């Protein structure tokens, strides 16, 4: 498993968040999540401009194995989506913290219940895999 990037924060739903300088937050799924899903073959993205609420549906990632909802870790407005995933969903497998990012959101509130890299690592290690 890849080492967790230190500049990100994480959720118990296996998402990562990066605080951008313009005030938006970039969101993707973790290496642990992509590995558990297997090869990704389709990603359903939200519309730019769409309002999302914390804990609500935001995107769907489908692997060869199953479909999984991606829940928004914050409330806010979608300001960008990774269009490249339409043709290369496998970026999420090969580069989950980089080219495999999923959405960018302008939060209307602070993300709650997130974890530091160390805490997330401990959380993952504690899961029955």
């Amino acid at each position, binding site marked *: 498993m890849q080492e967790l990037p230190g500049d990100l924060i994480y959720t118990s739903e296996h998402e990562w968040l990066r605080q951008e300088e313009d005030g938006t937050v970039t969101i993707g799924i973790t290496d642990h999540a992509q590995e558990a899903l297997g*090869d990704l073959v*389709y990603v*359903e993205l939200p519309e730019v401009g769409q309002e999302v609420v914390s804990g609500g549906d935001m995107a769907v990632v489908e692997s060869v*194995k199953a479909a999984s909802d991606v829940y928004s870790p914050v409330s806010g407005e979608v300001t960008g989506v990774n269009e490249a995933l*339409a043709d290369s969903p*496998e970026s999420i497998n090969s580069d989950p913290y980089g080219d495999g990012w999923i959405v960018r959101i302008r939060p209307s509130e602070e993300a709650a219940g997130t974890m530091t890299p160390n805490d997330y690592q401990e959380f993952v290690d504690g899961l029955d895999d």
Partner: protein
Amino acid sequence: MGKRTPLYDAHAVAGARIVDFGGWDMPLHYGSQLEEHHAVRQHAGMFDVSHMTVVDVDGEGATDFLRRLLANDVARLTVVGKAMYSCMLRPDGGVVDDLIVYFFDRTHYRVVVNAATRDKDLAWINKQSGNFEVTVTERPKTAMIAVQGPQARQLAATVIPQQWRAAALALKPFMALEADDLFIARTGYTGEDGWELIVPADQGASYWQQFVNAGIRPCGLGARDTLRLEAGMNLYGTDMDETTSPLESGLGWTIAWEPDERDFVGRCALTEMRANNERRRFCGLLLEGRGVLRNHLRVVVDGVGEGEITSGGFSPTLERSIALARLPAGDYDRAQVEMRGKLFDVRVVKPPFVRNGVATIEV
């Protein structure tokens, strides 16, 4: 912990993701299911199928017994080593299991059934055998390896004992041979050429490693499922089970109706169903847009009725989603599938989707 095949340690060392399959700890993939799928379509891959159940049926009554037990007719097997696919039915026409039967002579057959259904299959076979002069013997656990793909036979041939190579390579499709303690059959479950080999349990790991060295890629159950789906091959428990007849599962071709007087289990029920023009169709589906069709999704045929996807998934070869589905009777080639509350257009097609590395459905 589930049951483990003689190849389990090899899978673990290779970093396989292990999942439970019918009580067995089996590899799902070794890193990338998609790459494993393509390896079989384009080159050579192999699967551990040691969990499958091998049963020998012997005795003076073996032929009569199997002609009663199976919907297909073993009397049609006349060449030594020839294999046949068949369903084993309940009296009401439901499918107990699907299987392959190999013919050695009129008193000696070998039957390979599914792993997940082992207990009920053995109980069913034994119960039916009561009035026949046969012995039903489950073979002690062996290692079974399926090498599949356009290069699979040539590569695997370099590994088997030299004196058997020519005979093994000369096997025609659906033919098998016993080569000392090896059993080699030109069969498979991927839509590609290849062999299924039974080797003694204590030699399994050695054969597996030699196949790896020869350039054959280990593949897991994930790729096995997408390969068989593309090939339009049914999966027991998913596409058919005890509540569905072969006539509504795309398996009508496996029922031997002639001769009329052969009274196999389920014949009466099937004869009635056969006369029913309203019986459901079993078809392939091709999703027109993006997304992935999944098992049990609802299929809507406008003005006709509704059906259900029995197995769906992503076709790595077509780069589209495909499915097998049980649909209402009627003549139509368009339908819609409900996914997350929305309807998506699908084309209704005749499987297979892919054979021998080539798409058989226009995308």
